[in-house]
């Protein structure tokens, strides 16, 4: 497969792995957080940890939008779709995301709610056109990558006068989440597991560019390497992080230069800033309330805002107290450290956010990583 196989070359991977092995100092531990679920997936899918020296450890971050969506937002969506006039459009991996008390959209659908699995915002537009008497609500979720398509959908709805279409907005911002992780006292005071550097988002950075990470690197003294989602990208980013750590540098470096620029996609950013504005705070599963980390529609677009339109108010729902997602998302614990992992919390019956989507830290570990408990290390 052209443009994919080139970035999955075994010989090159082993070359980079050797370079990492040669660069690391046996005297220190390297703990890097890959922020994005896409990176987590690549690491697990290709077994990259088998290629890394024992003192380089990857910590799976909160960069999976389904995973960080709190139970309260699922409950709100279920309340929305309880209204008989509402058709809710959601991405498939949201269906099993846990709400409170065992609720999920999948269960709501089985009980008769009109929930449609869609693949893009265009499906929601089509549904709104086909059923003008229905209230079609698009469950918008995701980081900066998926916000521009939502903005475009609202523009189209405006232009086509689709009066029945609205958005349940759950878009969140990456730099705010990274800030929240680094501000966590456990990490700041190295009482928990210190993070020596970040692999920064791939797709998100195509939109926002590398610039927004610069204050973070500076303020917290952590190197950040923006990297693509292919396995060679990830390995190269790890090598770049190792070098920065060894040289006591903390810069934002761009491994994914074939796509990402410092400025990002100006047109997409403009479109987003015209339609969305910051929420004072937004709840993240695992991180709690994070200031300035979520988006909502500007008052001028209130007619497209499902929360305003249906007067759905913020709920607060407590997470399962035994769930360690909070510590796992912050890199303080590993999936196997959680009592629920693999017992009551599995991909079929997820309790915590990290098990919900295949990109979540626990789900990836469950699917791909359990073999690593055994000492067998591939040498060939």
């Amino acid at each position, binding site marked *: 497969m052209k443009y994919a196989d080139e970035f*999955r070359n075994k010989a090159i991977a082993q070359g980079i792995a050797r370079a990492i092995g040669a660069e690391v100092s046996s005297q220190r531990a390297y703990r890097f957080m890959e922020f994005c679920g896409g990176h987590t997936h690549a690491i697990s899918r290709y077994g990259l940890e*088998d290629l890394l020296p024992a003192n380089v450890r990857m910590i799976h971050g909160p960069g999976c939008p389904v995973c960080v969506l709190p139970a309260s937002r699922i409950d709100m969506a279920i309340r929305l779709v309880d209204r008989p006039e509402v058709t809710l459009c959601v991405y498939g991996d949201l269906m099993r995301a846990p709400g409170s008390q065992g609720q999920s959209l999948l269960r709501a659908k089985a009980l008769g709610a009109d929930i449609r699995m869609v693949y893009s915002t265009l499906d929601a537009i089509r549904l709104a056109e086909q059923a003008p008497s229905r209230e079609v609500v698009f469950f918008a979720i995701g980081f900066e990558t998926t916000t521009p398509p939502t903005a475009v959908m609202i523009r189209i709805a405006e232009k086509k006068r689709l009066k029945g279409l609205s958005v349940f907005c759950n878009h969140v911002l990456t730099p705010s989440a990274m800030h929240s992780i680094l501000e966590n006292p456990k990490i700041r005071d190295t009482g928990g597991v210190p993070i020596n550097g970040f692999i920064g988002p791939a797709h998100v950075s195509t939109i926002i560019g590398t610039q927004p990470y610069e204050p973070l690197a500076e303020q917290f003294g952590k190197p950040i390497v923006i990297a693509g989602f292919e*396995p060679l990208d990830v390995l190269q980013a790890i090598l770049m992080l190792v070098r920065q750590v060894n040289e006591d540098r903390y810069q934002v470096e761009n491994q994914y230069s074939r796509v990402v620029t410092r400025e990002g996609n100006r047109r997409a950013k403009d479109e987003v800033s015209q339609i969305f504005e910051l929420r004072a705070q937004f709840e993240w599963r695992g991180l709690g309330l994070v200031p300035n980390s979520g988006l909502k529609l500007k008052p001028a677009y209130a007619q497209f805002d499902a929360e305003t339109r249906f007067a759905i108010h913020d709920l607060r729902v407590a997470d399962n107290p035994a769930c360690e997602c909070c510590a796992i998302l912050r890199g303080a614990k590993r999936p196997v450290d959680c009592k629920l992992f693999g017992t009551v919390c599995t991909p079929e019956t997820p309790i915590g956010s990290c098990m919900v989507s295949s990109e979540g830290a626990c789900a990836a570990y469950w699917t791909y*990583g359990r*073999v690593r408990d055994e000492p067998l290390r591939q040498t060939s």
Partner: protein
Amino acid sequence: MSVKGYQRKLDLENGRVDLSHGSGGRAMAQLISGLFHQAFGNEWLARYNDQSAFDVTAGRMVMTTDGYVVSPLFFPGGNIGSLAVHGTINDVAMSGARPLYLSASFIIEEGFPFSDLKVIADSMGSAARSAGVHIITGDTKVVERGKADGLFISTTGIGIVADGLDLSADKARVGDRVLVSGSLGDHGVAIMSKRQNLAFQTEVGSDSAALHNLVAVMVAAGGSGIRVMRDPTRGGLAATLNEIAHQSELGFRLHEASIPVKPAVAATCELLGLDPIHVANEGKLVAIVAPDLADAVLAAMKAHPLGSDAADIGEAVADNRKFVQMATGFGGRRIVDWLWGEQLPRIC
């Protein structure tokens, strides 16, 4: 049966199924004789009984049943009719048996076009004939509009298995080889390419095919050295191997690089975030074969048109956790788990 009195001819071009076609009256008799018997025609159906009698030879028989709810009904490489014949033949054949007879039950939604029904019945008839299997009994029900999505078909299959053959998913042994009969994921990708909200252009057609002749040459080459056969339909290769691992209480080690996947299937899966080993097949089988006979069975498979891309993709290993593991093309390892959640509803 001769239908007396005037009856309007079935309008196979523009007509549609209505509730009278499931009522047990003359309209139903007309649908059965004018459409289904035409398509399936054989000596058993010609006797118009509610059941069919057939002779059995000494030995062991196998029986299986399956429901088909695929959406869309027509897809590249087949339709629900050919699928309903191939799928059930394959379930019979995976025991090593020779399939003999099928039953077919139709649940039709009011308003369904006769023209579509005829195409579907004809392809069932032709799939059965070319497989040397007879559809000898059936049933037709019509439900109100909105109560079924066009057409559902259930088929039951009966076959006869040779003495000494007792394939079963609990019979895999450590050291056995894992063989697949060809490229994986074709059926699922063909279906996805026709889904309304996912439509994309691809040259990939469904691999829907009857596998019993391939099974026969494998049995001739491997005999009871073939421990298990399964056709990896829903959930794909990953689900099939996990099932066998659990039933046989062992693990599997696969080599990603040796698993046959067409470039177009790989590219589609890449685009949609799927893994070909989770995608459904309708004309492929997985065989777990004793190590000393694996090469002979593989050679027999490769010599058959339906097994020309067959490959040895791994082995059974001792593992009390019953993990299916894979050496990635990258030099790492990963677990191949059951797919959780629904990758794509109504694939077959």
